[in-house]
């Protein structure tokens, strides 16, 4: 299916670890082809032979970047390794970087101390419905903005863009009061329903840009009248839009998996908590047992790492593309 979209940045399958190269128009919707130059050296030209000075500078940079990248990875690595330590190793001087004997029992403990399984299931349900709502609603709205002419379209699109600059905090209190009136407090509805309203401006914007890059002829061929538009969207546009759907889904997933403030405000009962609240409970109740807190945190991190490895091009392309704003 992807062969007819040469500009969307290569093959999605089988290259899980590929990053968009510098020079590649990530997730391009304007049909330009990807450049091939892999690096943008600020020193020297491509093709010119390297001087001693340049070799020295690149070697120094190489060493420095290795050191820096390792330091960026250290906190995460330390968390995972400490989740397998016995407490004497956690509180040892000098620091024990690798546990002598991986102590998997910490994970068993984490699952016993608090209902971690419940937190996981709750998170899955909340995130699934919130992401589903985001994808469906932003596809519908983006289709309207990209493909249909209707009076007021520019006005509503402008409003959509304006909401990007809106700090969420302004609606925090009134939203709480609205949901309280609806008796939605201590249910998952406040964490799911708003996202079926296409109010994630960045998602609608991403999809609209992508739709605009798909040639109209395909749809013109399928004769359009009102009743057929759903079919056009489902059978023509969406199958061509898998990369952008994946990007939106991955971003929304990250957003809802991460969300801490909304669950904190809306969910009181522990049996309805998502992981974000659960991890805080470990941190509060078992503050002295670092290895257990780290084990629970590692449980929360693991799915993200898995998704990142499988879908990292969508993370990266989405960021790169939103960075381009109106292009």
């Amino acid at each position: 299916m992807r062969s007819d979209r040469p500009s969307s940045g290569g093959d999605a399958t089988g290259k899980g670890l590929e990053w968009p190269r510098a020079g590649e128009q990530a997730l391009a919707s304007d049909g330009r082809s990807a450049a091939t130059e892999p690096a943008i050296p600020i020193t020297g030209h491509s093709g010119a032979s390297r001087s001693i000075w340049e070799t020295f500078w690149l070697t120094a940079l190489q060493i420095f970047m290795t050191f820096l990248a390792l330091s960026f990875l250290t906190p995460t690595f330390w968390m995972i390794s400490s989740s397998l330590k016995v407490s004497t190793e956690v509180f040892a001087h000098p620091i024990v970087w690798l546990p002598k004997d991986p102590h998997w029992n910490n994970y068993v403990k984490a699952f016993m101390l608090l209902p971690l399984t419940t937190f996981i299931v709750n998170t899955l349900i909340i995130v699934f419905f919130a992401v589903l709502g985001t994808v469906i609603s932003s596809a519908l709205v983006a289709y309207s903005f990209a493909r249909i002419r209707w009076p007021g379209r520019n006005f509503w699109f402008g409003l959509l863009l304006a909401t990007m600059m809106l700090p969420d905090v302004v609606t925090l209190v009134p939203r709480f009061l609205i949901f309280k009136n609806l008796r939605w407090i201590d249910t998952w509805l406040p964490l799911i329903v708003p996202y079926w309203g296409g109010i994630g401006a960045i998602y609608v914007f991403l999809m609209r840009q992508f739709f605009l890059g798909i040639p109209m002829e395909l749809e013109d061929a399928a004769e359009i009248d009102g009743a057929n538009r759903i079919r056009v969207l489902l059978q023509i546009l969406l199958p061509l839009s898998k990369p952008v759907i994946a990007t939106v889904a991955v971003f929304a997933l990250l957003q809802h998996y991460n969300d801490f403030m909304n669950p904190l405000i809306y969910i009181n009962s522990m049996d309805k908590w998502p992981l974000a609240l659960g991890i805080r409970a470990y941190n509060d109740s078992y503050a002295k047992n670092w290895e257990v807190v780290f084990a629970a945190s590692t449980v929360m991190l693991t799915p993200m790492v898995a998704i990142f490895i499988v879908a990292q091009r969508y993370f990266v392309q989405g960021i790169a593309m939103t960075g381009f704003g109106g292009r």
Partner: protein
Amino acid sequence: MAVIAALAGKHRITKRQIRDWIAGYLFASPFIIGFSVFIAFPMLYSVYLIFVDWDLLRPPSFVGFANLAQMFKDPKVNLSLYNSAFYTLFAVPIQLVISFLLALALTQKIRFRDFYRAGFYMPIIVPLVASAVVWQRVLHPEFGILNEALGWFGIAPRMWLFEPQLTKPAFIFMSFWMIGRQMVIFIAGLGNIPDSLKEAASLDGAGAVGRLRYVILPLMTPLIFYNMVIAIINSFQTFVPAMIITEGGPQDATLFVVLNIYRNAFQYFNMGYASALAWELFVIVVGFTLAQFYLSNRWVYYEERS
């Protein structure tokens, strides 16, 4: 507007057009409804809330400008504004410099670039709560890895999260860990600079520094601007680390604006007062953003497009 023109008979409205209008509104209806219910109405509602005193137990009572008057002289409010401004003022520019330098370095002819990129990006996928939990311990005076690492260079251990003067710098340092997004945007932007421009500059005798100064930096200003606007909006809304790591302490050194709003709304149940504080933040953030757009004409280079 098209409707009026059409109704006035200047254009004949076809059946097709009407069907389009209906379809347009129907497809956009999730946003039209969602915006009205979850954004527009709450914003209007919170304007009303500014003028009431409401603890959710008794019915709201009208207090006029009392909330606003109190807001301007409340020392906690001023402190939270100072804390957020301090944090933003130092965190954002340094974040931008670091992420730009990383992006530049990652577009040089060095090996393992994919590994480096993944390494710098990795912190973004660590859930915020988990990263707060980890950093609370990274910064631990006795068993944290930061003091351990500083010890290798002969630097004495510090009480990062327990000394009021050190907590905000520690939070700023922590924010440098999460610059993967900005870096990726810069990398993509660097890739879009045409080689012909850099070659032309070289032919004119520009060295590496000259190319950076006169070609790369000017062309990157739109992305620097974009990253700056987003970073300021985000850093004014810092909440999770302050809530989890320090709970605003020590001595309110990390009482940031959003944490203060959260407390007033959901711990002290002053719905009216919290709404006033939220609007204050809104005015500040939007003001900053507009000011940046206004000033951007002076330094952001926009390519003319044909």
